[in-house]
């Protein structure tokens, strides 16, 4: 069945396209589950994911700041090609120093945490208010606030507060920091 690009398909056409999809067997599902588990146990794959995520965050920060790669390279004392390669993930085997400097020149900080499989690291902002420390999940905009990271599990409260996707900075959850 062909669907014309300039015309959104009708419901009937959609149903036909689903009917025509190959059936996925239980054996296929088991194979997919096994493949995903193997990927999560492959350090080379985990490195690829981390490198991509770091570069993605740096690209996002640069876009948010409105600065050009040329300007960033000049302030950092690097060539534009170097910055371009770093942000486009063509520069591999860079050091922690490299991303720390890149983040620094974008007004950000890098926090590396080692954690157990199944745990996630949540970035929070911290402020001292009325004699006690309060924390909030970092608002998505603007970037560049001082941040700390903490260990958490996906089911914990910290992760739930991360769901405040569109909340402005002032509305973020405020509660005492754990000792």
């Amino acid at each position: 069945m062909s669907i014309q690009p300039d015309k959104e398909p009708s419901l009937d056409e959609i149903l036909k396209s689903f009917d025509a999809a190959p059936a996925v067997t239980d054996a296929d599902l088991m194979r997919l589950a096994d493949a995903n588990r193997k990927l999560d146990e492959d350090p080379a794959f985990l490195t690829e994911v981390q490198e991509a995520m770091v570069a993605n965050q740096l690209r996002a920060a640069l876009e948010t700041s409105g600065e050009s790669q040329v300007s960033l390279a000049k302030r950092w004392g690097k060539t534009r090609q170097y910055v371009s390669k770093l942000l486009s993930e063509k520069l591999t085997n860079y050091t922690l120093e490299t991303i720390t400097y890149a983040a620094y020149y974008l007004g950000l900080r890098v926090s590396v945490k080692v954690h157990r499989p199944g745990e996630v690291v949540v970035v929070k902002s911290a402020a001292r208010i009325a004699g006690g420390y309060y924390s909030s999940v970092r608002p998505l905009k603007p970037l560049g606030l001082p941040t700390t990271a903490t260990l958490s599990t996906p089911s914990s409260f910290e992760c739930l507060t991360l769901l405040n996707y569109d909340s402005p900075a002032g509305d973020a959850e405020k509660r005492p920091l754990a000792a």
Partner: protein
Amino acid sequence: MGDLMSVNSKVDTTKGLLEVPGLDVASQFAWKIRLLRINDKSLALASLSGWERNANDEYRKISKVMRIVGTSNLPPRRPHVGKSDKYDVYEMIGDNARLLFFYDKTARVVVCTNSYEKNSSTDQGTAFGLCERLRQEYVKWPPQQRIP
């Protein structure tokens, strides 16, 4: 009991959302990744299964992007994710493989709908059009149908 029956009678059991087999919960802490199922079939699941079986490099790249999407609050940028110029739908980018999806911001779910491959009979515009049409259908579903 009567109330339960009336709720269940509104749920079409042939459509809903499927989990990605074996995808770690920690890789989905910002957005749950789910596969759209209609008529008990899932185009996205069929594509993942096909790539895993026949194009392992593609499967690996799409799996990598899936983890980036699931842990990034904002939509990632290229080279991993592309956005349609016309619609509010996105694509996870492999070498030639593309897995299309949209965000359900209410349920915090990324809904993977369909796929296409570069140099195949399906082009990007067609695939984005189908994804958008599936999004329009999805938002009409009752909330209990959209439980991830």
